[in-house]
């Protein structure tokens, strides 16, 4: 179910402001790709173009192509709603629906895709998704409690369970651990290592150790100055990126001399 993503000549605009320029990369299926770079370099913006979530912001638009298994996500006739059902997303801050129980949160996306689901199937799906997110043992006795009653790390895993319950092709994670403590972060990182057997994962992170720990490939974005667009500097295997990057800018950034 995991799919390869090919991005070619991608520019992202907010109105007339070009936020990201000339990005081209290939994201391999069943792997974790980390996007790193200083604040404001456009890596989150770029991530959101992969499921067309940037369109939520008025005036945001994209030029270029994003091919998912050969299908252009920005082709005419492609419904952004359908794209988002294929490409799940986990946000910086945990955002379970506060008005729904834990079980309802897991099923939220499924109920959109497929309104009729038998009670037995629903229960099975809740369990398998929560197990997939390493949360089942902690919440199995209180599935009818509100999602907001959980700790931050548990909430984030609930959001991951909600995202994988719809069986997406790709999972996007926008700094998923930045609001979590180290132990919860570790739990999420372990989970990512398991999930990459089934999903294509793209993660934005500010934490370079995290990128080095979890990802297979790393892409480094940077920005030349205020008002300039963010650009992809280089992308390579994570090991290479953190040992022998080809670009000076990358080396400066990962060695802490910049950003």
């Amino acid at each position, binding site marked *: 179910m995991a799919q390869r993503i090919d991005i070619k000549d991608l520019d992202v605009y907010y109105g007339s402001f070009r936020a990201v320029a000339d990005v081209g990369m290939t994201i391999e299926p069943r792997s974790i790709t980390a996007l790193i770079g200083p604040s404001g370099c456009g890596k989150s913006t770029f991530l959101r173009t992969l*499921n067309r979530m940037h369109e939520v912001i008025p005036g945001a638009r994209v030029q270029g192509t994003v091919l998912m298994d050969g299908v252009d996500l920005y082709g005419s006739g492609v419904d952004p709603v359908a794209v*988002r059902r294929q490409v799940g997303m986990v946000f910086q801050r945990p*955002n379970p*629906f*506060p008005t729904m129980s834990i079980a309802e949160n897991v099923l*939220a996306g499924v109920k*959109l*895709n497929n309104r009729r689901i038998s009670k037995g199937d629903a229960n099975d799906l809740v369990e398998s998704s929560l197990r997939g997110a390493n949360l089942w043992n902690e919440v199995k006795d209180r599935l009818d409690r509100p999602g907001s009653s959980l700790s931050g790390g548990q909430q984030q895993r609930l959001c991951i369970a909600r995202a994988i319950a719809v069986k997406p092709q790709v999972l996007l994670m926008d700094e998923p651990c930045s609001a979590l403590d180290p132990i919860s972060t570790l739990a999420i990182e372990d989970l990512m290592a398991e999930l990459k057997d089934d999903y294509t994962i793209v993660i934005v992170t500010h934490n370079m150790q995290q990128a080095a720990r979890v990802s297979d490939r790393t892409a480094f974005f940077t920005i030349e100055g205020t008002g300039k667009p963010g650009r992809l500097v280089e992308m390579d295997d994570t090991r290479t990126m953190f040992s022998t990057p080809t670009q000076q800018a990358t080396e400066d950034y990962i060695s802490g001399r910049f950003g």
Partner: protein
Amino acid sequence: MSSSTPRLVRTAQSDPVPPAADRADPTGPADAAGPTTPRTTPNENGDPGRTGTRARPDVAGRLFAMTATGAGATILVVLAAVAVFLVLRAWPAMTASAEELSEGIQWFPEGQTLLGFVGPLIFGTVLAAVIALVIAVPLAVGIALFTSHYAPRRIASGLGYVVDLLAAIPSVVYGLWGVVWLAPRLYPVWTWLADNLGWIPLFAGPASQPPRTVMTVGVVLAVMILPIITAVSREVFLQTPRLHEEAALALGATRWEMVRMAVLPFGRSGLISASMLGLGRALGETMAVLMILSPGFTYAFELLQAGRHQTIAANIANQFPEANPLGVSTLIATGLALFVITLAVNMAARWVVSRRKDFSGAN
């Protein structure tokens, strides 16, 4: 260190805003004295050289606490004063026998007890208000959602302005408009309803002409309470955390599904509060009802027939100028009934909201 200590002290003392949850609570203002308590902070910091900061009295904080407590207490005092007035002045009528009432008051129905008199009035009042709510709430939610989540910003602000203008129209003008303009135009609608849906007891014909009926009153009341419900629910819908909206969209929700998943559940309690504000206005509206409704004192469910219903407020306004002391007391007793209904409705609404408190997203 020495530079950071005074700052710590000041933030601890000059943070008199209680958390949002406390402010919504009627007992909140009494707690407002709380923020002055962290005065011991400098001591705990163990910085004896800086005891001067501890001695400085927090005048602004005290003043704020006193003002807030006073404001909170004023509400309670006013409420109690109204309740006491109503009970005291209604007492003569409540203790009078049926004969005394029908002999002493010219317009009092023959052989009727006070309860028998108030009952149809309560019924009429609640009926008119419920019709108004049934019409206004869906419309208000629609307008609020349109302005908060669908319309382009320019149209949205224009529409919001127009809706707010509706609230500024005096009720006597609504009454005039209802009688002179709206009622004749509603007549064909009511006739159609009676002809086609007459088998539902609510719409049993014949539709009265002129339609000075509780249904027409309900429509006018709906227009009158529309602005307050719309304005409050629009503000609540706009408060929906972007995170929750994006969570729904990222799951592949359409705009309407996002509204149902994130916006409406989040705004539920606010919507109930807004409806209660509207209901309060509809229950107490006097002038428009007085001008439109042809009064009657029955428990009739036939909404399209005139001369069947009357509301408490309109009845008071109608009879008060010519009432003798016992008559005034009777009218005040009906006012007391209205007061109790309003309290009961508000308490019920609070209960509905608090029942799913854990799921409100406030925690």
